[in-house]
């Protein structure tokens, strides 16, 4: 198991946002967390990333307890997040954004190799490398957000709503790239509201509802589960 989350309870003040969530992810997998707005998907990712702290429960990465490890150390261990809403550094150039993704990396040659890899996946970022991040289109910003996270050479990539606000063609493109990244050996934890798309690329999935996991299984099974179909796929 690459990632294991055990009985996680997270509060925002009095609000019990995650109510005992447990799940796991094996090396090489794409696992998706699907659910409506406010189900606790982003909260889960931010707890794994170390910028939120749980009241109880544990997060293990490669068997190591990282529940209270500082956020920057978690990135160093090989877990990096592409956050919801992309959160590009608008006042930095595309290149500088990518360099910030590589902040924990010290080997210049490795960084250069990684940069070339990211540019191969996202040729458009190369064309725009000297532009300010804030001047990119939504799709380009999403590519930059994923590229930036990849610059840290993660073993596990956390993707929060990569399809948000993008046209169907762009969503298709982004999801193709996500599969490519996975094929090259990076495990992915994918949070999505677009359940159809997420389940079509993921190996397994979990369904979150108001801070609890209500359903889990292979993507195919979930795609054909009548409850999922009704709640998240717009039943036919």
């Amino acid at each position, binding site marked *: 198991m690459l990632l294991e989350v055990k009985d996680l309870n997270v509060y925002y003040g009095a609000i019990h946002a995650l109510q005992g969530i447990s799940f796991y992810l094996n090396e090489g997998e794409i696992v998706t967390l699907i659910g409506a707005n406010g189900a606790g998907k982003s909260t889960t990712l931010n707890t794994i*990333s*170390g*910028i939120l702290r749980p009241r109880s429960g544990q997060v293990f990465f490669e068997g190591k307890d990282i529940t209270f490890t*500082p*956020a*920057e150390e*978690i*990135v*160093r261990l090989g877990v*990096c*997040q592409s*956050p919801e*809403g992309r*959160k590009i*550094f*608008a*006042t*930095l150039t595309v290149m*500088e954004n990518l*360099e*910030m*993704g590589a*902040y*924990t990396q010290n080997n210049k040659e490795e960084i250069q190799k990684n940069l070339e890899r990211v540019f191969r996946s996202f040729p458009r970022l190369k064309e725009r490398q000297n532009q300010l991040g804030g001047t990119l289109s939504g799709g380009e910003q999403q590519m930059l957000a994923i590229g*930036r*996270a990849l610059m*840290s050479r993660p073993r596990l990539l956390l993707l929060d709503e990569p399809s948000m606000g993008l046209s169907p063609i762009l969503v298709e493109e982004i999801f193709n790239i996500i599969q490519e990244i996975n094929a090259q050996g990076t495990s992915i934890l994918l949070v999505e509201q677009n359940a159809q798309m997420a389940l079509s690329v993921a190996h397994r999935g979990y369904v979150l509802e108001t801070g609890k996991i209500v359903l889990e299984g292979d993507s195919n099974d979930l795609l054909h589960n009548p409850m999922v179909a009704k709640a998240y796929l717009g039943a036919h």
Partner: protein
Amino acid sequence: MNNEQLTLLQRIIKGKWIGKGFLALLALAVIWWVGGKALQSPPLFFQQIINGIQLGFVYALIALGYTMVYGIVRLINFAHGDVFMFGAFVSFFSVSQFQLHLWPIKALPSLPPALGIVIGTLSVILLSMVSCAILAMTIERIAYKPLRDAPRISALITAIGVSFFLEYFGALPFVFTPNFITYKRPFDIVTWYIQGGIHRLEAGAEAPPGSVIFSNVLIIIIVVSILLLVGLNYIVRQTKIGKAMRATAYDKPTSRLMGINVDGVISTTFAIGASLAGAAGVLYATAYPQVVFWMGIIPGLKAFVAAVLGGIGSIPGAFVGALIMGQAEVLSAGYISTPMRDAVAFTILILVLLIRPTGIFGEPEREKA
């Protein structure tokens, strides 16, 4: 609020065209007045401009610390002027008590004396910069960091408290004493005058009437300030820590997600800003050779006005604002009366806040999702 409730002044300031017209009139009046003075006696005017540049560069070094710290933690660090004072005192002790400025001559007697003095002076400045950086990092760690998630007003009040603490701790008889102390420069002053060429002015001699004089203090201030500004620009634009500073200023949570040690970056920002203030303290004391525990208050406030005028959070803004403040102060002191310089400085602050609170280079506060 609808239009009828506004007073005439508010309408002048808020009305787009009227406001611009008012600004234009004000600018014209200032240009006409300054221009008139310039034509009356060009040498005197150039003398004022030179003095203004000297002061402006010192303000620029202080203002940068305000603006950088504001940019990254949204805090007006009112203790910054006292860090400047601390820098001046460190250099006072290193020169008067420890003769730090003489080490190159003592250690390397074969060195040309002029070069020895330059290296010695730079060592004095460097020691003040490092001391101020350590002081500011300590202040940040003890006083500001615990308040990172507290309301901004708490940190602001704390900054004022830290300022008072540094001043009155400095005033203790066994620290800096409450008295004015004559500052010993690390180098001998050399003066030149310009009149159909540059001539050396012998010590004790009077410059001929109608000439413009300047000293090596001016040269040192300009050269050191420009070196520091170029260095700062390099750090902020080109280095990893500089880019991390800009990323952190823009978005702290995302910076943490990228593995940036945000606390370390904030601490570094305080250190860099304080080291510039430390250098400014040394330069200011060499230009106006007296030190006293409260000497940081007024230059600190003026540099704060400069940072607001330029657009707080903007590094080029702080520089431009400081040069304008230097000129405004010297011209009003020279042509109106000495006490007017403070009145003019704070009038500028009020006008900026009324007319363009974001300053010359400032952007309106971003909405952060």
